């Protein structure tokens, strides 16, 4: 059983957004799942099994990716956004992994985008979730755990 809380999840994401994007994250509203969304996911295996998911509107994913690459959002190809968003998920998962018990391994990132999406995590349940915002863009971070 993990003891990671939503506060620690927010702190992990905040560390990455601050260091890689120079964006401060704060508590925010839940991102509407009705529009075009980006979801990045890293599976965790080993002594602790689960996943870390980051999700936001595709427009926000594009802005976050542009900040990461220090370029204009309009100049980014979709592949660049997917690549950058996957790396952000990987970096957040790395922060979470350091707080998990035992020996664990991270998967390579998976990124999907589309409308009205949710990811099914098999036998995993939501362990904790936090809704954040950075420079007006919503971001939801979720930790899944297998019982």
């Amino acid at each position, binding site marked *: 059983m993990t003891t990671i809380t939503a506060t620690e999840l927010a702190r992990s994401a905040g560390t*990455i957004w601050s260091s890689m994007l120079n964006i401060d994250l704060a508590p925010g509203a839940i991102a509407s799942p009705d529009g075009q969304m980006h979801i990045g996911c890293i599976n965790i295996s080993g002594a602790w099994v689960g996943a870390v998911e980051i999700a936001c509107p595709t427009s926000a994913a594009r802005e976050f*990716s542009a900040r990461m*690459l220090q370029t204009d959002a309009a100049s980014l190809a979709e592949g660049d956004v997917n690549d950058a968003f996957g*790396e952000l998920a*990987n*970096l957040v998962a*790395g922060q979470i992994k350091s707080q998990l018990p035992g*020996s664990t391994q991270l998967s*390579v990132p998976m990124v999907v985008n589309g409308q009205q999406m949710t990811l099914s995590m098999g036998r995993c349940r939501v362990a904790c979730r936090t809704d954040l915002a950075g420079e007006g863009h919503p971001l939801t971070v979720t930790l899944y755990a297998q019982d």
Partner: protein
Amino acid sequence: MKLLIVDDSKVMRSIIIRTLKAAGYGDAVFAEAGNGIEALKAMREGAIDLMLLDWNMPDLNGIDLAEKMKAAGIKLKFGFVTTETSDEMRKRATAAGALFLVGKPFTPEAMQAAFAQAGL
């Protein structure tokens, strides 16, 4: 100095190169590879002074590449730049011959310290 950056993310490779330039290594020649197999090909194509390896990559990941290089007697200075920073991973990296392990996210100062560890 020729540096080989091995990471499956093109974005992360560009960030590593940007950080290395900020750390004072802007005169280096940068080669890139997206996984261990591409890294082996790049090694054959030219003399590499230092290889920076990601841990988790498809096809041939960083630690498997490092262990194969050690088993084959390939002498090349390398270190990891990865989210895998546990003591267990550090020990495995060191056993495979890695000179350093820099955790992501990283700073120019962390890269300078790593290069100093590698004698560069």
